[in-house]
């Protein structure tokens, strides 16, 4: 059961991580590319972390929940990274919101 769950999360996680990166390559401009990593990749990594959680909790050495921490951390920081990158791109294109507005 645990193994099935682990495998499921592994497959989901791997797939989403890949999709996020495909988006990074495939989408035509930077702002569109931003969507891939901020969502798909974070969830993808989250999936793999959860799989890890299941895996190491099932070894009879007690629960292993600390992977949650990494996931939480990523969810906290990824939007900030995306925000900064977007701002940077806007700035480099000379399209700051403050300057326009």
């Amino acid at each position, binding site marked *: 059961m645990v193994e099935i769950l682990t495998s499921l999360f592994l497959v989901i996680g791997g797939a989403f991580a890949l*999709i*996020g990166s495909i988006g990074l390559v495939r989408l*035509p401009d930077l702002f569109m590319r931003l*969507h891939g990593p901020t969502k798909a990749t974070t969830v993808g990594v989250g999936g793999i972390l959860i799989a890890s959680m299941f895996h190491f909790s099932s070894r009879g050495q007690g629960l292993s*929940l600390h992977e*949650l921490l990494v996931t939480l951390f990523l969810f*906290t920081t990824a*939007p900030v990274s995306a*925000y900064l990158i977007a701002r940077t791109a806007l700035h480099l294109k000379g399209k700051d*919101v403050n300057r326009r507005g």
Partner: protein
Amino acid sequence: MRRWLPQPLLSLCLWLVWLLLANTVAFGHLLLGGLLALGLPLLTVRFRPELPRIRHAFKLLRYLMVLLFDIIAANLVVARLILGPAYQLHPAFIRLPLDLSNEFAIVMLTHAISLTPGTVSADLSSDRRTLLIHVLDVEDEAGLIARIKHRYEQPLKEIFEC
């Protein structure tokens, strides 16, 4: 009380973080984590973000559940958009007028926007009244703004009462 426990919620979070880090609930770590959860906020008390008072913890919980659901949904949507034909996408920047006044609430809103389907917060005006959002595939700009306001901004406003 306030002097020794300036931010109870933060301390609680840190205590949980410690238990997660240690990956155990052994008594020694419960104790040590407690000490650290009390001590570190004191040490970094001046660094703390200006956290607003949370008036409605239940609403916060509900908000988080909604957000989690949206994140999962967002991924499916974005996956479809990424794998689908790119020329069908209609990307655009839209400006979201903000009603929030608390800084932390704004931050939470930008986070929510960035984590949910097809939108990324891209720029916040210096007067903190407008948020520039990039949308991957926009069909109904006004509807999107209304959805964000209803689904995230309103609850945040209620939670932090600002």
